[in-house]
């Protein structure tokens, strides 16, 4: 019983939509997004997350997306268990050599149409690990990247805002 009363009495902590309108300096790497994408992802976006050797900071933030504060599910954005179900590949980390094959395989396993987002400075160009012998200096060296979300790590709010921006951008192109 106390469970239900807790559920009912807890204050709503959700971040309102209006607070998410802040512009974000998101980098559009590749403009080549097929026509099909534009008409599709308006209401439903499934993300497959790959950690290609990150410090786990991005993962923490991405996990926060589905909690009660950010609740990305209300926009139809959710993480999935298999790349086969995904529309978007979200990659963090500077791509260590050991993870390159896994990243490539994940990319191949996602059915078309698909979007690739590199998240965090490491993923964009290697960040503090840049030019180390163990990393490949960013996701774009392994798979084609469409969008990059900078920050080390970007906060959950940044990620959410960026995702909404990406969706918006895709839809805008449609018109």
């Amino acid at each position, binding site marked *: 019983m106390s469970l239900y009363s807790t559920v009912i009495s807890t204050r*709503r902590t959700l971040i309102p939509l209006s607070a998410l309108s802040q512009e974000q300096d998101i980098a559009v790497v590749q403009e080549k997004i097929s026509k099909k994408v534009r008409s599709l992802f308006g*209401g439903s976006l499934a993300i497959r997350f790959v950690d290609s050797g990150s410090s786990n900071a991005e993962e923490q933030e991405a996990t926060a997306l589905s909690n009660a504060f950010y*609740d990305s599910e*209300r926009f139809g954005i959710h993480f999935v*268990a298999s790349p086969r*179900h995904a529309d978007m590949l979200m990659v963090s980390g500077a791509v260590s050599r050991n993870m390159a094959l896994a990243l490539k395989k994940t990319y191949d396993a996602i*059915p078309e149409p698909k979007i690739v987002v590199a998240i965090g400075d490491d993923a964009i160009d290697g960040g503090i690990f840049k030019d180390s012998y163990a990393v490949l200096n960013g996701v774009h060296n392994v798979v084609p990247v469409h969008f990059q979300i900078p920050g080390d790590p970007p906060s959950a709010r940044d990620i959410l805002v960026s995702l909404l921006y990406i969706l918006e951008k895709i839809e805008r192109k449609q018109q």
Partner: protein
Amino acid sequence: MILIILKFILLPLLSPLMVGIVRKVKALMQNRQGARIYQPYFDLWKLFHKDEVISPDASWIFFATPYILFGLSILVLVAVPVFGSVESLIPFSDFLVVIYMVAAATFFLALSGIDVGSAFGGFGSSREMTLAALTEGVLLFALLPVALLTHTTNLALMATYAANLPVTSYFAVITAFLGYIIAMFSETGRIPFDNPATHLELTMIHEAMILEYSGKRLALIEWASANKLLFFALLGVNMFFPKGLTQAGDPMALLSAFGISVFKTILLLVVIAVAESSVAKFRLFRLPDILLTGFILGIIAILVAVI
């Protein structure tokens, strides 16, 4: 005949909404806003318009399973009464036929899980068949008391006669319903049996088998499991709480009976979502205990019903 075709089209269209409602209620229980209740339609629409990636190891079983699964799921939906006694004319509306059609769908789903040679799929199949094997008896024994009380195994007739049962038989009906709920949780993969929202392959049952599917075939499977949820909910409310089903044949009466059925179903689903939110997932080896409880409830209900 017209009714069959109507149900054939209408009920599958309704089923994603039910999934949406369950998800919404669960989100609210977690203090989230959650996805819109018509989110599943968006998901399906998107999946139908995506390409597919299929493993070269897959055989025709993998290709054909989604169609078989969806076809059977609509059939069992059609067999459930939503209007009233008019549906007794549906020729496959026998409760054994329906139970075994569900089992046939599970059979193919489990085969497709093994088919591509992924270790996850194989374990999903193994677990699914383990649970399905034990659940079949629970489901049968939950419906049998109603059949024995109403002296028919035709689902529509069972439902219409059950509406006029004397108060003395309510105990059997309620006990059977409790058993039915356990079977329903197991068959539709709800917590505590299976977590439909899990991302962890090691704890998956149903999800593990469909990891390999993508695009339109994934859409069909997701939709089929939505159909299955609607089927079990509809069957549950109309077998055990058949108030509202009509014996008349005119369109207005049918329409109101349909409306009441849908309303009851939504009510049941809300209750299920709340119940699901308040329990934790069980260990796999504790699940037979729950199913055994369901089985015993069924036996009690049968013995009470026939003595």
